[in-house]
């Protein structure tokens, strides 16, 4: 997903001089071909995220569209105030591409996890937050970012994720995609948790429980229309995210329901990371198991709730 994202940026930059790629201190060889081909549009700036965001704001004020890439926690937490003031207060078209959203960097420990990134960015006006589910969706997404007039945070997954998106669904920022039609239940998911929800939905179908999957690639602006149309039609909603239960997609869905369709609020059940720092290493998958974000647990919660 990451390579696809960066390669797409390279392709766009070749035909659009306004597009710049700015890295902090990325892995050796990252976009080496871009650096060679269009050196003026490739900047490796060093481990200085606060400055990088400010500099990107200055470049955007002058008409450039910077795509900034670093590890997600350092692109969100480390420079939070610069993102808020320099990018969002000025409402500038800078794109932040965060590697390893969620618990991808499990073996590296809690300093490298990004499980609150959606929460802290969701409260900033003008910010757009997107978590695509696979590399093919990433291609469609990157194309849409060129002319989007606001700051965007793109949350990258580990890569090599199973392709579950479909070209025929297209891609529009802010428009959720119903990947499986709703039945008695509906999973509302983002990022690569969509894969897990699809699998859970398929297994549940075999057990006679029909559950849809609404893939909310854009967490902000949230697709209120899709929520308004689908939630009243089902008995149970389970939101699934690789993010803290506080402040992420589930919270956003709950807030919407509470504000606009309050009688449906009690249908919402949230699966996410509990309010504690990770005290385990292992892998993304083992950490997700530890936090009970698995196909099995998603399925079980849906079963339990649809039975009641």
């Amino acid at each position, binding site marked *: 997903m990451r390579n696809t994202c960066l390669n797409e940026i390279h392709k766009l930059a070749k035909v659009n001089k306004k597009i710049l790629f700015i890295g902090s201190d990325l892995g050796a060889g990252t976009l080496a071909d871009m650096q060679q081909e269009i050196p003026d549009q490739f900047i490796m*700036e*060093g481990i*200085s995220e*606060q400055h990088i965001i400010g500099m990107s704001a200055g470049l955007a*004020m*002058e008409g450039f569209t910077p795509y900034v890439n670093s590890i997600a926690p350092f692109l969100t937490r480390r420079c939070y105030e*610069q993102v808020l003031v*320099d990018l969002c207060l*000025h409402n500038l078209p800078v794109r932040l591409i965060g590697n390893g959203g969620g618990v991808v960097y499990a073996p590296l420990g809690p300093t490298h996890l990004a499980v609150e990134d959606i929460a802290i960015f969701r409260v900033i006006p003008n910010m757009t937050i997107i978590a695509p589910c696979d590399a093919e969706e990433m291609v469609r997404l990157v194309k849409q970012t060129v002319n989007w007039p606001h700051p965007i945070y793109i949350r990258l997954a580990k890569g090599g994720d199973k392709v579950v998106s479909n070209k025929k669904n297209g891609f529009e920022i802010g428009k959720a995609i119903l990947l499986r039609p709703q039945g008695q239940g509906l999973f509302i998911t983002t990022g690569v948790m969509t894969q897990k929800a699809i699998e859970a939905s398929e297994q549940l179908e075999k057990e006679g429980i029909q559950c849809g999957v609404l893939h909310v690639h854009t967490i902000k602006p949230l697709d209120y229309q899709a929520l308004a149309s689908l939630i009243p039609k089902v008995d149970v909603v389970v939101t699934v995210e690789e993010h803290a239960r506080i402040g992420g997609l589930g919270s956003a869905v709950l807030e919407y329901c509470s504000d606009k369709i309050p009688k449906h609020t009690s249908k919402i059940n949230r699966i996410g990371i509990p309010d504690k720092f990770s005290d385990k290493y292992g892998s993304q998958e083992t950490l997700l198991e530890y936090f009970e974000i698995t196909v099995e647990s998603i399925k079980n919660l849906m079963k339990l709730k649809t039975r009641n």
Partner: protein
Amino acid sequence: MIDKRSKELRKTVVDIIAIERRGHLGPAMSSIDILRVLYDDFLNYRVEDPDWDKRDRFILSKGHGCLSLYAVLADKGFFPKKNLLTFCKSESIFGGHPERGKIPGVEASTGSLGHGLPIGVGMALAAKIRKESHRIVVLVGDGEINEGSVWEAALSAAKHKLSNLTMFIDYNKLQSYGPNAEILNLEPLADKWKSFGFSVEEIDGHNIEELRILMKTIPLDKSKPTAVICHTVKGKGFHFAEGKTEWHHKSKISDDQLDEMYQCLR
């Protein structure tokens, strides 16, 4: 000795302060003479077209010093001086810190410290990539350069050889709580900036003629960004406020205190 023009600009600042009986007087007075010379003699701009693409960009990174910027921009005609009488009112465009998109001539919303130099680096880099000849000027406070982001930006400015970027440091030696030397010592300041790859000059930031002469020599080096350390006095022009931390930001200013301010400008 403060000349007539600098007194006039200071009077505008006092007029603004009088509205809500509050404001950052000290930092406005240490920077106002630098701003005067910048806008009189150095910066290229078009008052009737503030977004003119060939303009020099000026960022007041120490946004709390905005009263001096407001006074100078009004003096130059970016907006009528009487508009400043709305200072800090609910619907005003003039708040306690300056905002881009609201005030003609303001390039960046500042207030939170340590943001102006990185933005200035971005603007200077943009001009360099496009081979444009306009210049970028950033005014930072001395307390402000406690912020690590300033030094991150300094490394970058030198790396990109941004000779089109000039930073003025309003070195009034006082931050909000007390002397820089006690809060977080900056010395040896000139050596620090030199070692970060800047070409550095030191100057009396209230000496109009010296400022004019120095500005004619910018960039000091054609392959480096410039840092001008301006030795200034916080509250300059008001004997009761000079070098006094309590005048960094003052509220509930009394009639007598206001009268005394105007007396100082006679």
